[in-house]
């Protein structure tokens, strides 16, 4: 224990740099995946066949390829086509696109869970498709979508460690570098695990708070 504490004090600053990058990758890809996921979901429920199929094919394509391969593709293959992205950009875009598939399935399920009578009522007072989505469907779908969304957030936080495979020096990578240089595997990886927990526990708390907030039936 004594040794762990001295190790912790020594390596924490370096690991915290990793934490910073982990948070950056997670937030960046969370935003991207949410926006893209919403786009796919809206395409799926648009009732326009071309959009529906495009989104469907895209989502299944993304779901069928491992995230790590998608990251390699963006970071190592795209430069051959003249699109050079930094490791950080590649990580955010790669994880964002990969997770947009899961986000979209979640959003779509939420949207389709809303009673069709809601759409008809909105139509009957003259609302168009976009306004129905914005004013009637999405505000109600949030309640349904939120618990799985929280889980996706936590999964994304953990999967941000895959960015290490394309040289982003986030938490897992920093841990591995320190461990292989010092052989202090136990101390270092314990700290890494604790730091991930410290990030995901508040997320879990936030999700349960939000669930309670929306469960009251009020906005």
């Amino acid at each position, binding site marked *: 224990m004594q040794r762990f504490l001295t190790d912790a004090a020594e390596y924490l600053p370096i690991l915290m740099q990793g934490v910073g990058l982990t948070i950056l990758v997670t937030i960046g890809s969370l935003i991207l995946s949410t926006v893209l996921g919403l786009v796919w979901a809206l395409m799926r429920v648009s009732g326009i066949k071309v959009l529906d199929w495009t989104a469907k094919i895209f989502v299944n394509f993304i779901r069928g390829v491992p995230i790590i391969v998608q990251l390699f593709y963006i970071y190592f293959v795209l430069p051959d086509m003249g699109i050079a992205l930094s490791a950080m950009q590649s990580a955010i875009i790669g994880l964002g696109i990969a997770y947009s598939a899961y986000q979209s399935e979640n959003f779509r399920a939420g949207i389709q869970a809303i009673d069709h009578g809601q759409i008809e*009522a909105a139509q*009957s007072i003259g609302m168009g498709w976009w306004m129905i989505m914005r004013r009637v469907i999405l505000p109600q779908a949030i309640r349904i979508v939120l618990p799985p969304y929280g889980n996706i957030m936590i999964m994304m936080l953990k999967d941000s460690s895959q960015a290490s495979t394309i040289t982003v020096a986030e938490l897992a990578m920093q841990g591995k570098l320190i461990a292989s240089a010092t052989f202090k595997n136990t101390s270092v990886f314990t700290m890494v695990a604790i730091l991930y927990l410290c990030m995901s526990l508040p997320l879990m708390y936030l999700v349960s708070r939000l669930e309670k907030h929306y469960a009251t039936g009020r906005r």
Partner: protein
Amino acid sequence: MIVLDNVHKSFGSNHVLRGFSTRIEKGEIVCIIGPSGSGKSTVLRCINGLEAYDDGSIRIGETRVDRDSKSIVDVRKRVSMVFQRFNLFPHRTALENITEGPIYVKGEPRDRAEERGRKLLARVGLAEKETAHPPQLSGGQQQRVAIARALAMEPEAILFDEPTSALDPEMVGEVLAVMKSLAEEGMTMVIVTHEIAFAREVADRAIFMDQGVIVEEGPAREMLSAPKQPRTQDFLRRVTHPI
């Protein structure tokens, strides 16, 4: 004001409307009755474009109802709908349900829309429920809010699709009373209903439909008291004397 001419509608192989024609004048109150599956609700849903029709024509004044055209928004502003299952927006208060259309569809200033909304709530007897959410209201109260929501669009006509069928029996009266007061004020109404006594008292004209066509129509009091067609007689007997 509303003219349906030889309207046909199929759901797959199910031919629901087989040449339905009628015209509804301004201020007229028409009740449509008939067995379930006869196409009554489909008629209403075609009139405001919730359902597309396959053949024939429906006109609101000069405008042809076409749900794929931009003009459908105009049609829906002019012809409101009240649903069997109320379909209030559960995430909004009673007042917000009423002002949603005026503010966001018609672009009415919020304070004016809310002032009108409060008056409409008072009119359906729910002034004190302004901030209640639909799940906190009884079925009858929800349907009265739904009627206020339809009125808030200042429509030329209101379509009622079995407005009391989803209600507990003791709540039917309060909804019918509101509808009756609308009728007395000269609102144009098309009502699909099983409330024969109400239809007889309030409606100008009754239409009995079966299998997608009009079997019999005429002045409501006459027709619903002494129908001429055997099928109408049979239906009315079964509805008014179920045992």
